[in-house]
């Protein structure tokens, strides 16, 4: 048994004890500053520091850093330690660098040089140290500097196992941080064979690397499926004594099994029947083992065993092909739901969420509904309860919706604050999605507002209003229900909003009953008025003017209210304006005009639920794509849906009624002259991206090109794709008609630059994605689509890009394009990534325009005129005379013309 303590560093121990004995933060800082000064002077003055001393000081700096103090010196000394021949000095140097030096440090060049020296040396221990450092920092500069050395180490025959292991993970790190700097080569084809390596550690490391490669390019590494299956099979069928040290608490190689099972989740079920059978056998064996009595009572044994089991279940769910396995998996998870280990209950709920989305097992999952509901009510741990909510949401369908929604509503009254908002969204979505009877839906939403009013976001109450307006059959019921709900002495402001809106529209439907007559309704609403925020008051004023139309008999009461100082002289300009305008409107217009202006709201166009959009934004992973869409009619109107997703800013433009609150552009304006566009605004297309004609640059010729292109791209602008284009993109796109290089798109997160070159029918385009933030952009994905039948005219080949874009880094992607026949539209590329957890989506037209494929032809004057004269049919001539807005600059015109490819 090794002891690493013993030869302690006395100075270090004393220093640490001093710090620990400090009574106050000030004393601690004082002591630290004293020590920093001491170390600084030692580093500066004393050239004869020996390794031991340097090591001691660096350890002290590390300790100070750990306490949260900045270390701004010592870097150079650490770099010097790297070139030492002594292991201990080198080691501490590397440690300091990988903990304290950021990727952008000036010294990085020196560090890389030292690393290269160590990699080239023959000492495996030095090589390992260098690799560790690269893996831990993993900067772009390192990737570029070491792109050849590391793959070589990995596949070379004379590399020892432990170095191979480290090299695999180092390469993985570099591929993640800058995928394009690593040259693809021979090593790639050999890499999957590492799965057969004798050394289990090497296989584990290689499996991680291969999984990363596979994610980018599954086709190329297809061979790894059968290798992984056979390796897995050998592990699963081995007895725990076979693998000796890689057996962990009687479980053979649990980590490697998990890795292999994860790797296989990147592919569909194997095509080769032999491989497929073998894999099924493996999965069955794993499921069988779960039923065997445990070989040890220790928690580590069951942990390791279950880690493999859960991964196997995930693979079964992923393959989604064998009903027998799926049901077994479901039963196994069902057992875990009642296990006494909290961890297993948590994971079982999580995996069952996935299972619920499979058609084979959806019914089987539903059997456990009672257990899940009990979990929701009785679990002590909020993380587990949250998973239970997720599962209930996933397993809900038409048959059990009423029960699940009821249970969730009941739980909501006592739910943890941290999950209330999400629960409200989920309840609202389920209620809408599975409502057979819309009166039930209205009840659910009003209950939501009653129980958890503070957590009901605007989207939820907007949505209930949309639905009530669109469905005649619930309007009367809704009016009655809100009327009753408003009777409560204290009701939430959101309830007042919904109540005001619905009574304003449909109050007449319940006015027949004297208990809810017009005056009663108005008094009820007005009794809440003084308790509300200005925004709600504005909404109520609008409801009042609608009342004037619905119930002429109470006109004078309402006019008195509008006229009161409290409204007409309100400090809030919006309220003042509404009071005055509504009062005027009601006094000067005839009943007919009033009836037209204050007509009932027209139905809202069907579109994706804004609540769903919000939930997606909140938890991108929790909403399985597509599963909801069959329920909503959103897919019928793709243009609208796209404009929802494009928003990079917070989803203000989605909010149906947000305009109504922030401006006078309220729903009553619907019938008024300027209200014509109101329904468009509600779609979130507030200012349609009309192609304006911006005059860019000063060249007169350019204007001509502009008009030219706005004609040629006119069909596209009406189409779906423009609806999805990100702001400002159209203008930037048009600039590329006359140039080949430049910036295509820029916002706070990302800058996208383009370089292109064309020869005859072939074009090559490089797109540079620059991360402008100080965070890594994750799950970076670029997709190119060809609208209409463009794919027949233009073939596009896209080099892979993706994974992550490091903070401040730039990645490059190449597109090769061949023009087959003439085309009018441009391909659309969609860029998606996660920025600090939020999904971002940008759609841009790829600047590929037909004129780029024009090739200038060299010819002498005679040939030219012969050809010129041959062009004599009238349709071959077209002339347009335009007025130059500025003097013609020859140089600039030349540049434009050559950019346009006519020179």
């Amino acid at each position, binding site marked *: *048994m*090794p*002891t*690493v*303590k013993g*030869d*302690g560093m006395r100075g270090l*121990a004393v220093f*640490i*004890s001093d710090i*620990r*004995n400090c009574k106050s933060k000030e004393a601690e800082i004082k002591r630290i500053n004293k020590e920093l000064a001491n170390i600084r002077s030692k580093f500066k003055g004393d050239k004869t520091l*020996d*390794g*031991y001393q340097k090591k001691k000081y660096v*350890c002290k700096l*590390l300790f100070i850093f*750990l306490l949260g103090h900045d270390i701004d010196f010592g870097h150079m000394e650490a770099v010097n330690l790297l070139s030492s021949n002594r292991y*201990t000095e080198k*080691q*501490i140097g590397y*440690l300091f660098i990988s*903990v304290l030096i*950021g990727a952008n440090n000036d010294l990085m060049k020196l560090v890389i040089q030292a690393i290269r020296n160590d990699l080239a040396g023959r000492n495996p*221990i030095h090589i390992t140290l260098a690799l*560790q450092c690269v*893996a831990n920092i*993993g900067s772009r500069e390192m990737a570029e500097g070491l792109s050849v050395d590391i793959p070589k180490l990995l596949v070379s025959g004379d590399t020892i196992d432990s170095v191979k*292991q480290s090299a695999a*993970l*180092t390469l*993985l*790190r570099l591929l993640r941080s800058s995928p394009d700097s690593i040259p693809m080569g021979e090593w790639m084809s050999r890499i999957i064979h590492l799965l057969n390596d004798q050394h289990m*550690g090497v296989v*584990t490391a290689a499996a991680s690397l291969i*999984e990363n490669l596979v994610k980018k390019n599954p086709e190329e590494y297809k061979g790894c499926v059968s290798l992984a299956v056979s390796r897995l099979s050998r592990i699963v069928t081995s007895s725990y004594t076979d693998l000796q*040290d*890689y057996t*962990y608490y009687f479980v053979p190689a649990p*980590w490697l099994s998990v890795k292999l099972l994860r790797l296989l989740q990147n592919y569909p079920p194997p095509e080769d029947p032999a491989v497929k059978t073998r894999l099924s056998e493996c999965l069955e064996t794993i499921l069988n083992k779960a039923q065997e009595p445990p070989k040890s009572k220790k*928690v*580590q044994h069951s*942990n390791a065993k279950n*880690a493999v089991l*859960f*991964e196997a279940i995930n693979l079964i769910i992923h393959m989604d092909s064998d009903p027998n396995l799926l049901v077994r998996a479901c039963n196994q998870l069902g057992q875990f739901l009642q296990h006494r280990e*909290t*961890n297993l*209950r948590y*994971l079982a709920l999580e995996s069952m969420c996935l299972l619920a989305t499979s058609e084979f097992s959806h019914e089987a999952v539903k059997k456990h509904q009672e257990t899940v509901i009990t979990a929701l009510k009785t679990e*002590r741990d909020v*993380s*587990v309860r*949250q998973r239970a909510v997720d599962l209930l949401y996933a397993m809900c369908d038409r048959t059990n919706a009423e029960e699940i929604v009821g249970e969730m509503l009941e739980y909501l009254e006592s739910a943890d604050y941290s999950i209330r908002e999400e629960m409200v969204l989920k309840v609202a979505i389920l209620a809408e999605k599975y409502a057979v009877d819309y009166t039930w839906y209205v009840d659910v939403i009003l209950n939501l507002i009653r129980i958890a009013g503070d957590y009901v976001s605007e989207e939820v109450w907007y949505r209930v209003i949309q639905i009530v307006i669109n469905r005649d059959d619930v309007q009367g019921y809704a009016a009655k229900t809100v009327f009753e709900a408003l009777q409560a002495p204290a009701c939430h402001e959101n309830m007042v909003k919904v109540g005001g809106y619905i009574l304003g529209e449909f109050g007449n439907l319940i006015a027949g009953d004297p208990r809810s007559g017009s005056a009663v309704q108005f008094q009820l609403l007005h009794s809440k008025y003084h308790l509300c925020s200005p925004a709600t008051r504005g909404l109520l004023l609008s409801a009042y003017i609608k009342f004037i139309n619905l119930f002429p008999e109470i006109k004078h009461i309402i006019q008195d209210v509008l006229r009161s100082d409290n409204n007409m002289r309100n400090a809030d300009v919006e309220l003042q304006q509404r009071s005055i305008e509504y009062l005027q409107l009601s006094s000067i217009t005839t009943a007919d005009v009033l009836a037209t202006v204050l007509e009932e709201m027209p139905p809202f166009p069907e579109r994706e639920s804004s609540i769903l959009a919000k939930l997606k934004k909140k938890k991108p*992973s929790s909403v399985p794509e597509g599963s909801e869409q069959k329920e909503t009619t959103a897919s019928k109107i793709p243009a609208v849906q796209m404009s929802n997703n494009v928003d990079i800013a917070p989803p203000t433009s989605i909010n149906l009624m947000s305009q109504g609150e922030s401006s006078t552009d309220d729903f009553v304006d619907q019938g008024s002259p300027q209200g014509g566009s109101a329904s468009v605004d509600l779609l979130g297309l507030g200012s349609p991206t009309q192609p304006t004609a911006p005059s860019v640059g000063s060249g007169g010729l350019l204007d001509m090109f502009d008009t030219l292109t706005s004609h040629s791209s006119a069909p596209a602008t009406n189409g779906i794709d423009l609806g999805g284009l990100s702001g400002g993109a159209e203008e930037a796109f048009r600039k590329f008609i006359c140039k080949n290089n430049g910036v295509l798109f820029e916002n706070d997160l990302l800058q996208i630059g383009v370089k292109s070159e064309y020869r005859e029918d072939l074009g090559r385009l490089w797109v540079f994605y620059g991360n402008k933030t100080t965070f*890594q952009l*994750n799950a970076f994905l670029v997709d190119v689509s060809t609208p209409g039948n463009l794919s027949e005219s233009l073939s596009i080949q896209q080099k892979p890009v993706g994974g992550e874009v490091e903070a401040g880094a730039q990645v490059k992607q190449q597109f090769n394009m061949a023009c087959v026949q003439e085309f009018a539209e441009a391909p659309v590329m969609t860029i998606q990534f*996660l920025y*600090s*957890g939020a999904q971002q989506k940008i759609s841009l037209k790829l600047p590929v325009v037909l004129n780029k494929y024009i090739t200038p032809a060299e010819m002498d004057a005679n040939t030219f005129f012969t050809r010129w004269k041959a062009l004599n049919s009238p349709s071959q001539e077209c002339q347009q005379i335009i007025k130059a807005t500025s003097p013609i600059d020859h140089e600039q015109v030349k540049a434009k013309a050559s950019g346009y490819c006519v020179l």
Partner: protein
Amino acid sequence: MIKAILVFNNHGKPRLSRFYQYYPEDMQQQIVRETFHLVSKRDDNVCNFLEGGTLIGGSDFKIIYRHYATLYFVFCVDSSESELGILDLIQVFVETLDKCFENVCELDLIFHVDKVHYILAELVMGGMVLETNMTEIITRIEEQNKLEKSEAGIAAAPARAVSALKEMNIPQKVKDMKLPDLPSIGNLKF
């Protein structure tokens, strides 16, 4: 991928922090504090997984932790890691520390920050699991120790002789220093 490995005590004092994704220094400190805040308010017998705090990346990340006597061992990971696998990895890490330090306690982590980093480097590299076989890990640590001893033997012999005299009773001294009681974390329910 493992984004960060943090060890702190019951009062939130950091004892080890290792980030495998770049965060600026002050952010690192904030993440430690936030994670402590999230983890420390949980009971001991609830589950070992929870969603990550906002600073480290929100619900796309999981915090997987174990609590041993005075110390929390916390791994922040993304969705590509198996939860139970990481939980076992924490166990391997602690068992390895226990073997290397012979009944490891919080003080060992404080006084041997460098060693703890070296041991961790044998387990996790660039955020990925490097080696899980404890025998193999300990062999590698032993090799390092041997090298260290031999180097110290050649070069620092005179210095060592002097310091050996001075430090004859260092372990005892360390124990004598005024320190709060720190129970060993080694012999806890493995």
